[in-house]
């Protein structure tokens, strides 16, 4: 689903007048959320953005892990079971080590993607409610470089961002290049 669409749905579900989230939480007796304004504090704003990103990323991660799980050789699992291993040990000693590379790639990819996230945070918090207090790095870049048309400062922020990303992506790139070398 497009990110902009997801943002609009999120905003509608959490609006303070008649958002369905407040209604459900109140009905479940988790607390009194009648007309609770989720956009009142920076913490709650950013938590909602985080939830939105996780919601959007889960299917991809789940499908990738599922595909990886189906690649685990049956024989290894069976052999471990015949040797008397309990399900938990089979998982820890057989399945998990085989999954580790995929988990590492997924983790570094997710970190990289979410580090540069812009759309969800910018739109969900709302352009008029963006303040230095709830800046993400990409939003800081957008505000300084683009809204204030200070291209020099914007470029400087971009470069700092790229350096951080380069450091983070080292593992992923090395791994993928090795994949490319094999053939």
């Amino acid at each position: 689903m497009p990110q902009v669409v997801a943002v609009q749905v999120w905003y509608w579900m959490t609006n303070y007048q008649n958002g369905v989230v407040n209604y459900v939480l109140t009905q479940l007796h988790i607390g009194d959320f009648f007309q609770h304004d989720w956009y009142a504090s920076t913490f709650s704003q950013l938590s909602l953005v985080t939830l939105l990103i996780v919601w959007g990323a889960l299917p991809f991660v789940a499908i990738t892990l599922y595909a990886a799980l189906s690649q685990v050789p049956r024989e290894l699992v069976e052999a471990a079971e015949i040797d008397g291993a309990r399900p938990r040990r089979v998982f820890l000693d057989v399945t998990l080590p085989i999954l580790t590379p995929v988990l590492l790639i997924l983790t570094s990819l997710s970190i990289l993607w979410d580090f540069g996230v812009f759309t969800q945070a910018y739109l969900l918090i709302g352009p008029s409610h963006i303040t230095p207090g709830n800046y993400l790095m990409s939003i800081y870049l957008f505000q300084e470089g683009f809204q204030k048309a200070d291209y020099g400062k914007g470029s400087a922020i971009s470069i700092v961002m790229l350096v951080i990303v380069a450091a983070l992506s080292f593992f992923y790139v090395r791994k993928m290049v090795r994949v490319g070398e094999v053939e």
Partner: protein
Amino acid sequence: MSARSARRTGWNVVGVAVFVVMVFPVFWMISTAFKPTDEVNSQTPTWFSGHPTVQHFADAIHKPFFWDSVKNSVIIVLIAVAISMVLAFLAAVALAKYRFTGRKLFIVLMIGIQMLPGAGLIIPLYVVLARYHQVDTLTGVIVVYISAVLPFSVWTLRGFILGIPKELEEAAMVDGSTRLGAFARILLPLVAPGLVATSVFAFITSWNEYIFARILLNDQSKQTVTVWLSYFLGTSRNTDWGALMAASTLTAIPVVIFFLLVQRKIAFGLTAGAVKA
């Protein structure tokens, strides 16, 4: 009930709960889009409306610039996908079949470029495109989308090409086909499902893209659907939630349809290829 089956039931409950949380926003969007306005605005939500209406869709379509933005999105996405597929396919063939100088550097650059956060590129792209007077034109956005989609497409297509046994092509050449003939008659049909899958990905990425379209297209008649949708909330305090959800549904529909249509085709293409081989 034994401890084991109790635990199993517990996990199933967790699974169902996760599923409900994942699906609920989509359900709520569609459900809201079809509800009459008084049900949308009531304090107690209605889960399923007794009297569904398409009024909100009519409202959304008649908002200013809706058709303009749809047209722009379609033009941008189609051209960007078409051009990038041709380029990506040729690059992928080169990467998969030939060992040329700078091949390794090319791979490193391609993977590295994918890692750059899009937001980090808005300033340089804007400055460069402004110098060539491509701000506020569809061509500028098309160029940006092509460059955004290319690295991934090359990489994926390369994988598909490698998956086709070299012997098939060699057999065709032994049987007297030229290199080009083998390429057109053997490689191209076998890679077709991969091409379709990759172009769907390119389509979805470009259709969903927001930030570049937002900064490069200022004129309201030139914006894409995602930008149009992001301005929908407007400034008024009384948001028309029903129309907003109808508009959101409309924006998401092409992605969903395209995906479903092609999903069947990909599965079909894969099995057809398997039988023939």
